């Protein structure tokens, strides 16, 4: 019921929490005072004369107590919200951190799930912290104070309070256990629905193009119904438990009213304490009722919190490695008997051996699934080799510190991701650089003019007013990679999908890098392949052919066949 992790996280705020408990007790005495004044006035009305001027100070006091109670409640809430927001912000930060590294795991969690947990999931903790925990405090303080005062006034009513009160937690626990199970189920259904919607929506356009909209909408309806059913099930339980609480509370109030009424009739009790008890009765049960409803709302929060902490704790942490690289010049890269497999499947890379000379440009090519992207992932330290070694200037990549290695390489994805931030941030990605450095790389990739045309220059926000074409994205990615003078450059199909102007530009950039940077390119296009120093043709995880374009052009080589197809000689072979 009280999440251990959350308790640990709110422990530092114990001063505020103590304050809140104290103010709860004061609030409880306010309730007592208000009830007592009203009872006193009623007593006077019934049995004495009460003129207006005699009543005025009491009325003023009554109003004052109302205000004090309200103000204390207000301060309490603000204090709690402060704690809650601090904790939420901390958790969101940690979750984003976990999310940033989640792509390294083999089975990446879907986007919808992350979104649900970081926005709504953490939001749900708010109810837990600002409603459930204080209600928990009120549950202990208010009834306690009220019971004490009731005992002083009328011990029989006090006893009724004491006897009926435990019934409430008893039922709560009983129902809570069932509700817990249903809640977990509902959360799963909710997540499934979120994943389903996140999956469906991007596909709607094609669905529309194929005239299948109506069918999909029906499917949405069906899936939504499942969710509604699950939620209603949980709600039913919540309602039944609320019903039981309400039932016990009202019956108890009724018992007290009837009991007091009868005793009054027989003159066993005087009016003032009796009426006080009646006024206090609903206030006594109210925290239980509110706790009950807060409990069910908080259940969602509890389930979400376990999910949140699970995600945070599962985040991979970055192990520090001994060798910190400081590269002066382009390194030589050697793959030595490298084997790799995902999980326990068949090896994706089989006993791979090749050497990439310092400062040379090498193309990896071959059919889909040959292992090109896996080689990139190994070089980016996203994966570790199963056996064998990758040597960077003789040092084993496995032992090299991740950050120091990454600082030396530039990587350009097939479609570089563009963040919704300034052009400057998109190029620097947080790395310190001078203005001239920045201008040099934009010049190099021919983006200077484009950037100058923008209203705010480098500070223009991409994604808002500016949308980049895929050629511009590629050039931006290249600028990003070249900014800090990388010693190794990894390019994933740099020419694919580009028009001739952009293609030409990237070619010229590569030309300039020759000898200064070790470049590895995944490519399928003839021009790119031919321009490289060495070509590695991969096939099912092994090297099919290796050598320079000249060397590979021999008749009957695999490469030769590839080229022939390109030249169109084999176009119509059937």
């Amino acid at each position: 019921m009280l999440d251990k992790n959350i308790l640990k996280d709110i422990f530092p705020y114990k001063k505020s929490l103590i304050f809140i408990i104290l103010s709860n007790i004061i609030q409880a005495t306010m309730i007592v005072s208000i009830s007592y004044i009203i009872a006193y006035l009623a007593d006077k009305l019934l049995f004495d004369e009460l003129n207006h001027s005699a009543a005025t100070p009491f009325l003023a006091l009554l109003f004052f107590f109302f205000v004090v109670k309200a103000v204390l409640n207000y301060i309490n809430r603000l204090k709690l919200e402060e704690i809650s927001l601090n904790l939420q912000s901390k958790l969101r930060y940690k979750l984003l951190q976990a999310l940033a590294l989640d792509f390294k795991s083999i089975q990446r969690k879907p986007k919808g799930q992350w979104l649900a947990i970081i926005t709504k999931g953490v939001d749900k903790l708010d109810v837990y912290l600002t409603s459930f925990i204080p209600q928990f405090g009120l549950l202990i303080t208010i009834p306690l104070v009220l019971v004490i005062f009731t005992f002083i006034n009328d011990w029989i009513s006090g006893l009724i309070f004491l006897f009926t009160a435990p019934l409430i937690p008893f039922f709560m626990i009983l129902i809570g256990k069932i509700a817990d199970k249903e809640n977990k189920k509902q959360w799963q259904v909710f997540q499934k629905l979120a994943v389903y919607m996140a999956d469906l929506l991007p596909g709607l356009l094609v669905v529309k193009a194929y005239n299948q909209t109506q069918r999909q909408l029906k499917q949405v309806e069906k899936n939504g119904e499942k969710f509604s059913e699950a939620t209603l099930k949980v709600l039913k339980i919540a309602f039944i438990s609320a019903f039981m609480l309400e039932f016990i509370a009202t019956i108890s109030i009724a018992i007290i009213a009837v009991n007091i009424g009868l005793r009054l009739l027989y003159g066993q009790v005087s009016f003032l304490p009796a009426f006080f008890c009646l006024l206090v009765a609903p206030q006594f049960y109210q925290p239980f009722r509110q706790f009950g409803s807060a409990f069910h709302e908080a259940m969602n929060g509890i389930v979400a919190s376990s999910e949140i902490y699970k995600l945070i704790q599962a985040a991979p942490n970055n192990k520090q490695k001994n060798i910190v690289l400081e590269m002066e010049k382009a390194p030589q890269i050697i793959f030595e008997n490298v084997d790799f497999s995902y999980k326990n499947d068949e090896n994706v890379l089989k006993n791979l051996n090749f050497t990439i000379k310092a400062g040379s440009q090498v193309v990896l090519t071959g059919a889909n699934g040959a292992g090109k992207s896996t080689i990139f992932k190994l070089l980016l330290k996203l994966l570790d080799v199963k056996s064998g070694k990758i040597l960077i200037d003789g040092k084993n990549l496995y032992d090299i510190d991740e950050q120091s290695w990454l600082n030396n390489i530039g990587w350009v994805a097939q479609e570089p991701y563009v963040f919704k931030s300034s052009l400057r941030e998109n190029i620097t990605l947080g790395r310190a650089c001078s203005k001239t450095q920045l201008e040099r790389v934009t010049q190099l990739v021919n983006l200077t003019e484009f950037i100058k045309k923008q209203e705010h220059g480098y500070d223009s926000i991409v994604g808002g007013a500016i949308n980049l074409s895929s050629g511009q994205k590629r050039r931006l990615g290249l600028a990003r990679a070249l900014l800090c003078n990388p010693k190794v450059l990894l390019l994933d199909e740099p020419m694919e999908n580009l028009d001739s102007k952009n293609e030409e530009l990237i070619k010229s950039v590569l030309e300039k890098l020759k000898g200064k940077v070790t470049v590895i390119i995944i490519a399928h296009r003839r021009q790119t392949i031919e321009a490289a120093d060495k070509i590695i043709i991969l096939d099912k995880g092994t090297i099919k052919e290796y050598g320079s374009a000249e060397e590979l052009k021999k008749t009957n080589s695999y490469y030769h066949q590839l080229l022939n197809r390109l030249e169109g000689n084999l176009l119509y072979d059937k």
Partner: protein
Amino acid sequence: MINEIKTISRPVIFILSVAVLVGTLAGLSSISLMGLSAWLIASAALQPPLYVLSLAIVGVRFCGIMRAVFRYLERYLSHKAGFVLFMRFRVFMLAKIIAALPFKRQSSNGDVFTIIVEAIDKIRDSFLRFFLPPITATLGCFIVMIWSGFYSVLLLCILFVAWLVFVVIMPMIVWRLYQKKSDNDLILAESVLEFYDGSKELYAYNYIEGKLKNTQQAINDYQDYRKEHFILKSKVELSCEILLGLFIVLVLSLLISFINDGQITAVMAITFLLTIQSVLEILAAIPSLMEHLDEAKRSWLSLKSFINKPKIQSKINSNIYLKDDDAILNVVNINFGYNEILCKDMSFYLYKGQKTLLVGSSGCGKSTLFYVLTRLLDVFSGDMYLQGKSYTQWDKEDWRNHFAPSFQEHHIFNISIRDNFKIFYPDISDEEIWQALDKVQFTAFVQQYGLDYVLESDGTNLSGGQKHRLQLAMCLARKKDIILLDEPTAGLDIVSAHKFLNRLITIDKESAILVASHDLSIVDYFDNIIIMEEQHIIEQGKIKSLMQDEQSQLFKLMKYNNLI
């Protein structure tokens, strides 16, 4: 809009009205419970006849039980109605959104959609919470008002004023205050999506911590936004509590003077006091509900911004192209785009059994043209003739039935391979699926895993090429008059790409095929070419004849790319 609300809510009107009734009864039971109890105790002190007292006792118990029962029923009914309503609303909204597709920012469709789902959810929650309480509170309050009116008009007036304050004036003020608050709700969602989609870049450039620091601002903004709202909400509750105290004191002082005037008995006064106190407590909870209405409104606005597209009509005088009755598709002088004109004056023909290559740099409007041809996007002006009939005479769905388009952002669904096909062709047989897979040389993979193999959303467990081939197979699974392929060879290795194009030549001898590509090296596979540059067509015609003309754009481009 009102009509739409009517249609959506028609099936639940009955349940909702029952819920209102039951809710009012629950409120009344709660009010009577306190009133009767007060009467019971006050009069017991004055030694009334026993039968009166027993009656009151039964009444108190009855009210107690009824309150619990009614409240249970109310919650159950209102939630049930709420869910039905929500389901209908969601489907209604999705239909609207689908009708508004494609959005301008195609690449971020996914993000847009997540935002939409969130907004729909919020509207549901807010509506459920906001809708019933004011109605039941008002009904309960008015019933007590009538009752107290029999005894004193002044009491009736006070109750009415309280009702006005809590149900009309305060909510209006609170509503105004909410409208002044900024709207920062989506910042966080955007950040999450950035971290998801850009995580590789963040990793490779050691920028995770740096980006987190920047994102801290977004988190803080989001929290500030929530905090502002929370403070406002707390202030509203604070004022309500103080006002509640004020009204109770006022009623009490009024009752005291009534007794002094001999207008009512002390017993009645005490009964009134507790009755009215219960009513006031119910009323005082209303102003803080405005929070939910505000949330619903904000969500509604963000939804509306997606649904309502500005329509731009433009008339551009252009050269008149002639209709060619032999062409299956005849496009004449069309202008199109999203908010502004993207492509001007495009005219071309597609013939049965002929393959046309559409080349142009990225962003020149090739992909958008495909949306226009499949009538997902309307043209601003111009005409399109399918089988000699103008598009204005075609039903949109009938029109689309003649097309098999493959877009660049062709989504792969998180279901089995077979079900992915069934999304487009509900009645497709396994045999047809295998044939389609064979057309794109994807049988080997599927044979290994089976048609029941569940693919991940967006095909993340497939390599780029595998994904691509599957998409193409889906597109080619049924014979259609016109096949539109956007970059069909992207991500394929050379061997596969050329094998695929080879197949394409042989598989569909009857269909007209239009392929958008930037890759001129595949030109030999095609009969006709359309070359686009900056918003219009700069050249089109038979490839064979253009290649013989050294002045043609095609010839120059081929030469430039070392292809000839």
